[in-house]
């Protein structure tokens, strides 16, 4: 009997209930800070599962013969196996199983949009609520963090080749971990003073605590990956120098999409109009919520309006709420149905008392004489025909302009790729949106240079960056193998 089959047989034996009965168990909800408490702090909203809740939730898994959940996961985590291990209380086995496919489980267990990925196809969800796969992933990752037990996975024999990874966000960390396991010498270059990229400056503490990000970074470092902060590739060092002077044989670009987009409406440069990136970086990375203990300030007025409907808009509006304005408003030009933000985050924002104004499009920001914000002028929208992506296009309602009194406006309508590397690297092909063009293997137009995540996609998810990092690690491996081969034939 194969090991896998053996495990499944064992699992069946200890299962106290028939699948039909298990289908009836309602989905477990992790304990959460109450809305009225959590708006007073930046601590994590969800407490996750404890051992008992995790075991009961794992019991709901049907152990499908054809686990569709795995196909719903962009990195194909062996969800069925790890959940079986949770049920059998083999938490270390479960986390090791996840880490075979995804090196950032504590992060992905928190920020992955599971409801539209693995959980959306879970068979339990056909009749009941789907299995809480994300929460179980988080549980085993946290269990390991709390109880120790981590030993770095075995590495292949050193290959004697080094790879430079630009950016220490989810994509950069993943590609580094994968390549280090394959035996490459990996150095990450990070422009900011802390590693983590968007996980550090973008995602708020209450959704992804920084110590969790640091713990996962430490796991990557445990594989021998080096991280150099305060190095801006394109400025401090160029791609050419990485190859020619520093001896790297391949480069991965995971620099993300950090450049904020604006609406181009009058009044957008008044002094109380922020990009969501500025607000979130001030709070998350620079700890403006601890001002004046930390020196970076933040200035929010009494009525704060956030414009947008994605996860970043939710993060911005919920972050603003924690600074206690009288009103915290979200303006979105489509309806709730079209909003791209994760359902869980929208729900959390609603619970926290954010005022949602749908089908509302800002057209002008009005200022006082001193250049501060006085009001935002909006027009009502209605939904027209679907656009290329199938989302119904918002159309202005004639003569529907109205004023809303606000004194801070935060623009969260998306980010463009950071332009520095494209501007300073000859021969690197980019699209008209400034994204770096890659082929199906993650290779760019420059030999030995690979890219993935938001810098090539323009704006995606953490798990997509992880998936791109995995793909690129395989491409880089085969590229470097061909370099080795070429070298040995020459020699």
């Amino acid at each position, binding site marked *: 009997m194969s090991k896998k089959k053996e495990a499944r047989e064992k699992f069946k034996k200890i299962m106290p209930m028939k699948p039909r009965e298990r289908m009836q168990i309602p989905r477990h909800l992790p304990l959460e800070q109450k809305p009225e408490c959590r708006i007073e702090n930046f601590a994590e909203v969800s407490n996750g599962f404890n051992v008992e809740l995790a075991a009961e939730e794992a019991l709901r898994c049907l152990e499908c013969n054809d686990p569709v959940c795995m196909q719903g996961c962009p990195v194909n985590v062996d969800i069925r196996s790890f959940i079986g291990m949770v049920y059998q209380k083999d938490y270390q086995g479960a986390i090791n199983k996840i880490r075979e496919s995804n090196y950032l489980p504590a992060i992905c267990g928190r920020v992955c949009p599971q409801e539209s990925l693995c959980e959306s196809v879970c068979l339990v969800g056909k009749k009941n609520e789907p299995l809480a796969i994300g929460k179980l992933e988080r549980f085993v990752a946290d269990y390991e963090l709390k109880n120790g037990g981590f030993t770095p996975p075995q590495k292949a024999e050193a290959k004697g080749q080094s790879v430079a990874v630009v950016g220490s966000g989810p994509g950069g960390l993943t590609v580094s971990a994968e390549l280090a396991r394959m035996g490459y010498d990996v150095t990450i270059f990070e*422009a*900011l*003073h802390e590693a983590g990229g968007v996980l550090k*400056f973008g995602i708020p503490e209450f959704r992804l605590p920084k110590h969790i990000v640091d713990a996962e970074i430490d796991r990557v470092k445990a594989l021998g990956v080096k991280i150099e*902060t*305060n*190095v*801006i590739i394109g*400025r*401090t*060092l160029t791609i050419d120098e990485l190859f020619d002077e520093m001896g790297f044989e391949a480069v991965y670009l995971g620099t993300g999409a*950090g*450049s*904020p987009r*604006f609406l*181009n409406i009058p009044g957008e*440069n*008044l*002094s*109380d109009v*922020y*990009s969501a*990136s*500025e607000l979130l*970086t*001030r709070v998350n990375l*620079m*700890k403006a919520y601890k*001002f*004046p*203990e*930390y*020196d*970076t*300030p*933040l*200035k929010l007025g009494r009525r704060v309006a956030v414009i947008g409907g994605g996860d970043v808009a939710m993060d911005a509006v919920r972050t603003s709420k924690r600074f206690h304005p009288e009103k915290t408003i979200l303006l979105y030009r489509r309806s709730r149905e079209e909003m791209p933000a994760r359902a869980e985050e929208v729900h959390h924002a609603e619970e926290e008392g954010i005022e949602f104004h749908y089908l509302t499009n800002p057209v002008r920001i009005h200022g006082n004489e*001193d*250049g*501060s914000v006085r009001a935002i002028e909006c027009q009502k929208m209605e939904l027209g025909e679907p656009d290329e992506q199938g989302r119904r296009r918002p159309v202005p309602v004639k003569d529907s302009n109205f004023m809303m009194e606000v004194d801070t406006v935060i623009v969260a309508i998306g980010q463009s790729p*950071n*332009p*520095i590397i494209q501007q300073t690297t000859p021969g690197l092909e980019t699209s008209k949106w400034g994204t770096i063009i890659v082929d199906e293997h993650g290779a760019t137009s420059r030999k030995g240079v690979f890219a993935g995540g938001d810098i090539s996609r323009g704006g995606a998810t953490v798990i997509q960056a992880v998936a791109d990092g995995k793909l690129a690690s395989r491409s880089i491996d085969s590229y470097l193998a061909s370099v080795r081969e070429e070298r040995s034939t020459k020699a």
Partner: protein
Amino acid sequence: MYVIQSRSLLAPGIAEFVVEAPLIAKKRKPGNFVIVRPTKTGERIPLTIVTSDAGQGTITLIVQAIGKTTRMMHQMGEGDAFEDVVGPLGEPTPVANYGRVVCIGGGVGTAVIYPMAKGLKDAGNEVISIIGAQKSDMVILEKEMGAVSDELLITTDDGSRGMKGFVTQALAGVMERGDQIHGIYATGPLPMMKAVADQTRASGTRTLVSLNPIMMDGTGMCGACRVTVGDSLKFACVDGPEFDAHAINFDELITRNRAYMKQESEALKSLESDQSCKAVRAL
């Protein structure tokens, strides 16, 4: 850590730091700046690289003590270290032999104009420099500016050194001579740069200024340093910091730069009360 090799006072409240940053020293060009976070709890602030020594692996920064962060930097000295220094940032000053140029530095802006003037001089230009300060003991880099200029004019508000008046008055004098000027470069407080722009607009003389907007990451990520130049929105950190002075919306920028005035004075007060406590404890 970025060790401070030396610190010297140039004028009351204005200090020069020579800091170890080998990678930056190797790369730096006139017009570049760095972002410095002096301590773990500190802000990230942009500072122009005044000069660098690739051999020693050092860069030179000049800092005026104004807010909490800059005052704390002033309390650091030789052997101390800044937590983070990142760069070189920004597009370097475009340097070529244009002919005759005027370089204007107001106050601590002289630290910004110096590397530009030096770059222009090295490229073969005839450099006329004007540096302004409130009073004689606030004049900085006089010797250095003199060394890279064919002519150096000094103005002070009270007339205690050089010409009495503002840099714009000295500039008017230079322009009235009728010699052709191929470029004007000005750095200093926003109202000064605006005044220079207004002064040179009619003649259409190419005028560049180096902007100092509120900035955080310095890599185009936060958008705080956005400035309207002509019809387009630019980020001073990646598109600048130098722009055509005639196209800049200065009024908008002046308002944006005032955004954190209240918080800054709050931070300063907390620093002062903290230090008075320390002083008491020391007794």
